[in-house]
């Protein structure tokens, strides 16, 4: 399949500290790609740079063959890259429905249409249609994660960047979110998915990229990554 996103020698310094060190990879259209690595490996920084909220120190990003290296976040959304946040950032003065409406009216597809129905469809997809009229401020953590995902999906991304959507969720909540990611992918959206939980990655992703200390450690199919000695060492430590 065609390359959707390509990242070349991406480097990011935070005043002397290297957060990303010449990271390169390509994402093919239609896949779910897992991005794993220990805490502080640079996963979220990588997301922020692809989504345009931070500028890289050097390196290049292209999306559908066009240069996206220093794209503004709202421009990235209009062109089809949208992200979720690790800690949900709902619009707290709004209802669940209004949150989704922001995504629908400011995202990639901004033509006039039936917002009411579309919002409800998306809320049904993520499993919280009954909460549509609730104030976002009244939601539980699990529901806030679903809302975060719903609002991002409302922007109609072609590439969805999912930052730890399962952290802090129960096993059954996690399974339903993973099922949701597979459904989103089946509907034609490419997904990059940051996750700590290796089991979640293996069960969901086609391809895995492993980051450690800002460097790309390995990449390949999930089963292979799971047994890669370098990956195991980064996660658990060296065998003595």
């Amino acid at each position: 399949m065609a390359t959707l996103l390509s990242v070349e020698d991406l480097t990011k310094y935070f005043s002397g500290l290297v957060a990303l060190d010449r990271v390169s990879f390509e994402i093919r259209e239609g896949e779910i790609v897992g991005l794993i690595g220990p805490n502080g490996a640079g996963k979220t920084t990588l997301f922020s740079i692809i989504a345009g909220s931070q500028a890289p120190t050097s390196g290049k990003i292209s999306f559908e063959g066009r240069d996206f290296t220093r794209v503004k976040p709202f421009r990235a959304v209009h062109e089809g890259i949208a992200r979720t946040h690790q800690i949900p950032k709902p619009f707290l003065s709004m209802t669940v429905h209004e949150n989704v409406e922001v995504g629908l009216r400011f995202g990639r597809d901004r033509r006039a249409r039936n917002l009411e129905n579309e919002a409800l469809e998306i809320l049904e997809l993520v499993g919280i249609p009954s909460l549509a009229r609730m104030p976002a401020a009244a939601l539980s953590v699990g529901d806030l994660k679903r809302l975060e995902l719903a609002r991002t999906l409302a922007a109609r991304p072609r590439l969805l960047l999912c930052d730890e959507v399962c952290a802090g969720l129960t096993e059954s909540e996690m399974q339903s979110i993973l099922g949701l990611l597979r459904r989103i992918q089946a509907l034609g959206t490419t997904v990059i998915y940051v996750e700590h939980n290796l089991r979640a990655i293996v069960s969901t992703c086609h391809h895995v990229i492993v980051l450690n200390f800002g460097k790309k450690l390995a990449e390949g199919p999930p089963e292979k990554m799971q047994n890669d000695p370098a990956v195991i060492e980064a996660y658990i430590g060296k065998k003595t």
Partner: protein
Amino acid sequence: MVRALPPLLLLGVLAILPLSDLGPNSVKVLFLTFVAVATSVGWNILGGFAGQVSFGFAVFYGLGAYTTAVGINLGVSPYATYPLASAVAAVASLLVGLPTFRLRGPYFAIATIGVSEATRVIMTNLEFTGGASGYRITEHVPFRQIEHYYTGLALASLAVAVSIIVRRSRFGLGLRAIRDDQEAAADIGVNPYAYKLGAHAIAAALTGAAGGVYARYAAFIDPEGVFGFPRSVGILLMPVIGGVNTISGPVIGGGVYGVIEEELVARFPQLHLLLYGVLVMLIILFEPGGVIGLLQRARRLALRRKVASWQPS
């Protein structure tokens, strides 16, 4: 539609009120209140809807006032000077906003104080408008207070209409998103910088027109009066009293302020700024929602009483 009834009723009463025998002083107070409401509602579009607290709205009020004053003296029809006053203020708002909207929260607020004071100093030293000694408007038509009254009423109504339209539009939704969480707004496709500039321009245009309408009535303006820091604080205070980020709050705040301000300044010429400061602190500490917040609280309390006293029959 039921909700639209009380404000329309109020508008109707205000429209026919001058037919009764109001004294010139009451008409004056009402006129000043209309001007106050227009600036209050204008400020709320940026400070309330978009959540960007500015201490610099005297800049737009003053520029509007001087634009109208100079325009009338050059022979332009007063009514043609008001859109001009709006346009000058809106352009100024872009010049102010381009650098200051790079800043957030209190840093933005402090920067607007600086811009406001700088403008006052420039106007105090501008020869062409008489500098610190002020500027007089000479009109060769008889003064008709009632004409000013209706101009003020029309201006205040226009401001409220603009505020309602903005609130209900896609633009207004974007401003709400920015107010709630600017990063999240940008990450979902809202351009925060452009939206803040837009809200600033609309707010400044209304404030500039209000300055112009006031200037023609006063017939004499000076930098201390229209560009002074107390003016900026007053414009910010009104929506805070009434309840920011609502449609009716700034109208209520403007009404309260318009009626009591003259009295306060007359009684406590040195102290009235201090009183404002204390008032702002009390509101922020005890009822950040202003009058609207108080009313909502009272309604909830009444409802709770009702529930508590309910007996199954």
